[in-house]
């Protein structure tokens, strides 16, 4: 086929310009920002180059709080949501009537506005002077005292955040796992039945190995997604996350950039790069662990 260099580049031009301006250039720029010390947004000047921004961020109690929140969120929601999605997908693939209906319902959270539905969750969990809220009403049936999940103790706030995160991420995981399960050749299950394989053994020896690539994929994307948590927290606790003590790393980045405590792109850049490094490390560890497991 003849080469049509000029034409091809013309076709690519819009995409290249946009990607260059808003993806590649910023990537380089953010690195530069993060090393520029004492950057002044108004005058666009800085004093020197060094690691001061990183040192500042790592000593900032708000950042440490955000780090703690994010790690707890990741460590709780990723295993819980993956296991729950697996359980639900297994249930879904074992039934025939009503399956479509369930699948449709389960997918709904994916297409809803995180901020909007978060508000509903807030209302359900909130305790105000007028009412203890629906969740507290249900807790009282079991004899537990009312807890303010939105403005109360740390563990309660963390619980709501985890609960809402799981609620939001589950549709994607259920969908992926259901289609993974459906793509397993039914003959394997027939063969297993003829051989009298117990349900548990069929699951651990056949189903799980067959869909393990998809589970690995979900765990990795789950880690990445959970590390970037932000809007769920905003939805539940409002924009001033530092005051609520529920900030996340991404939230810290944005707050540094803009908002009540904003105007420090250098600190924001340093924090963003720290986040990127954390995610990269965890992803690499995940990949290595899963490769070893798949081989073993």
């Amino acid at each position, binding site marked *: 086929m003849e080469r049509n260099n000029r034409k091809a580049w013309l076709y690519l031009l819009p995409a290249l310009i946009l990607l260059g301006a808003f993806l590649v250039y910023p990537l380089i720029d953010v690195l530069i920002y993060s090393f520029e010390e004492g950057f002044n947004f108004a005058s666009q000047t800085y004093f020197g180059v060094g690691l001061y921004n990183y040192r500042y961020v790592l000593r900032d109690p708000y950042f440490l709080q955000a780090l703690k929140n994010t790690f707890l969120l990741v460590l709780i929601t990723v295993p819980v949501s993956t296991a729950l999605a697996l359980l639900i997908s297994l249930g879904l693939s074992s039934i025939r009537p009503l399956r479509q209906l369930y699948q449709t319902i389960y997918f709904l959270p994916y297409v809803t506005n995180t901020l909007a539905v978060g508000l509903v969750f807030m209302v359900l969990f909130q305790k105000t002077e007028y009412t203890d809220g629906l969740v507290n009403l249900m807790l009282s049936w079991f004899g537990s005292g009312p807890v303010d999940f939105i403005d109360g103790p740390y563990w309660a706030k963390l619980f709501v955040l985890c609960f809402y995160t799981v609620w939001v991420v589950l549709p994607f995981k259920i969908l992926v796992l259901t289609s993974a399960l459906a793509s397993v050749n039914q003959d394997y299950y027939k*063969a297993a039945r003829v051989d009298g394989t117990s349900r548990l053994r069929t699951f651990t020896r056949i189903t799980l190995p*067959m869909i393990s690539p998809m589970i690995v994929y979900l765990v990795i994307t789950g880690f990445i997604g959970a590390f970037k948590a932000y809007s769920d927290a905003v939805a539940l606790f409002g924009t001033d996350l530092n005051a609520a003590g529920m900030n996340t790393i991404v939230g810290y980045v944005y707050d540094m950039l803009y908002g009540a405590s904003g105007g420090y792109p250098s600190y924001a850049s340093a924090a963003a790069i720290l986040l990127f490094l954390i995610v990269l490390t965890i992803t690499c560890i995940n990949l290595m662990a899963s490769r070893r497991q798949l081989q073993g």
Partner: protein
Amino acid sequence: MEIRVEHLTKRFYDRGRRQTTTAVSDLTLTAPDGALMGLLGPSGCGKSTTLNMICGLEKPDEGRIFFGGEDVTDLPPEVRGVGMVFQNYALYPHLTVLQNILFPLENLKGAARPSREEMVRRARETAALVEIEALLDRRPRELSGGQQQRVAIARALVKRPRVLLLDEPLSNLDARLRLQTREEICRIQRETGITTLFVTHDQEEAMSISHRIAVMREGLLMQEGAPQQVYDDPACLFVARFLGTPPINVFSGEVRRGALLLDGRAVLEVPEAADGPVWAGIRPEGFLPRPDGPLRCALSRVEVLGRDVSMVCTHPACENGSLRAIVPSRREAEASGGAFALRPDKVFLFDREREIRIPFRAARA
């Protein structure tokens, strides 16, 4: 162990068309102890459903299934003692060959469960039977189609089943391997003496290795018997057409006063056959080239394919479009000019409406 099914019926509810289709209808069949039996029919004839019911993966709506004297209809598959080889082998890709073969043994519980060494010993023994000892540490994707097939058979045999079921065992293999694997299945079956039932849509495959074949069509059993017997004595037009390569030549004809008329000309004496319109099926080897023969066809060409010499002709009454006769030599073929005498034992008459066989007393040609 004899396999016997009686009045087996299975219906499926088709959600799309909101109606039930009968996959298998009132099927009664016996595979004698130690036999290799082929279940033959075009796709969708219910043969795989029958196999699934015998192995217990599907429950029949009506009818019973017996292994030996024992009624196994209500038993779950694992206690029936069946080994099954799936069309695509269903080997677990993440397990090695040895682990695949061990898999059924590891499912056994309680007293039936052998010790680990015993399991491995039996797995190796079975692997030796199907001649794959050298492959035990490989994974299925590293094996050829024929080797995978053997592993699948080994996995089915390792728990010493009472009956062995094979679903389209040769369909995923190329032509050369198919021939070889055919022999292999024969040998394994002979050595183990296990009653084996296999499903195929390939009549040549069924004819070549089975002791008995059962021909099915649209859920109904059309005919059952030894392969040669079914070939020589088809009960209906469908069976006659389904068996044999090249296929049988079908003519629309008429019986009048003890003679078969094709296109108005008497071509064969058919004593004791009733008068009326018929389908006449003539096997390719039933044509004897004779310059003065009563059946006069227009010779299109003579084909020589290896040993076989076949004459391709046209005849106005022939339903196939062109008819094909296998003849002894090219010289004879060309000398005849397209005229044939017929061998009465290779000519079958069928009722025009119901397509079932009309017997006649064959005189020697």
